[in-house]
């Protein structure tokens, strides 16, 4: 396995486990996204940096490295949004449930 594969798979697994365990903590994922954004800005400012990092990781081009990087970011974003949707759905369920109980129509014989 090439170094890039190890370097992508291991952190991806670690990030996944970390994010899953901390998804309910807004500070953690906000800081994670800020870190991703800063890395992105550094690459924009100095595009050659992506090429030199890519070569060190045995990736042919900086553009390919960016593609892998974006895939990881996209995956993390998807996880965070899914977690948010689950949490909103749970809240919605509670509201609908309480409303149903409050407005019950009792027709006891």
């Amino acid at each position: 396995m090439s170094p890039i594969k190890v370097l992508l798979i291991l952190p991806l697994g670690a990030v996944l486990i970390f994010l899953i365990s901390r998804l309910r903590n807004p500070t953690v994922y906000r800081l994670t996204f800020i870190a991703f954004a800063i890395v992105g800005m550094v690459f924009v400012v100095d595009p050659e940096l992506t090429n030199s990092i890519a070569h060190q990781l045995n990736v042919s081009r900086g553009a390919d490295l960016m593609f892998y990087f974006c895939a990881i970011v996209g995956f993390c974003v998807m996880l965070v949004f899914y977690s948010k949707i689950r949490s909103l759905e749970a809240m919605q369920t509670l509201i609908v449930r309480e409303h149903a109980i409050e407005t019950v129509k009792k027709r006891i014989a």
Partner: protein
Amino acid sequence: MTIDPKTVFVLIPAYREALVIARTVVPLVATGYRVVVIDDGSPDDTERVLQGLPIDYLRHSINLGTGAARQTGMTYALREGAEYAVHFDADGQHDASEIPKMLEPLIAGRTDVTLGTRFHRKEDIREIPPVRRMVLRGAIFVNLLMTGVKLSDAHNGFRAFNRKAISKIQLTENRMAYASELLTIIRREKLRVEEVPVHIVYTDYSTHKGQRNMNAIHIVIDLILNRLF
């Protein structure tokens, strides 16, 4: 031991069941149990066809799913002082005359939860359509893997609970995966379970309306996602 039938809450989640719900509810009303219909946001005439029947009618303002409707019924039953709660399907698959049999182990104090099973009697097994039987065998195995609870049947929806179980169970799976989540909770809360043979009626309506076999895949995915998040 005799019990006050009004302390038994029969919970019937209903979504688009206007065609059959009255036929299901009328025999239940005659038993003297407290009948609770949880209308899961049906756009049809479910409420209208139940008018005049001595029941408690709760309505979700939007459709949430059968798991959510059952939990609404359980929460309501608990707050109203229920001693026992029975899950009963709206589509006519369950038989009201089998409820005392489901309650007997609970009343005797032998168990906290009774689950109906179609796989204890040969005549009940024969009634299950062959493809459904195969899917159910798979579901039984998946349930064992995911919940650690070994049962002879899966997802037939006929269950009964004592007050202790009603208070311990908090379903968070809104859709069909609630049935496996329920087993996980039963195990986690160390509730005692007993299976009771029941007869499930397969009509054209219930077969068409009920769970599609492909839903098994969605149930497994929902269960995995629920574990992660």
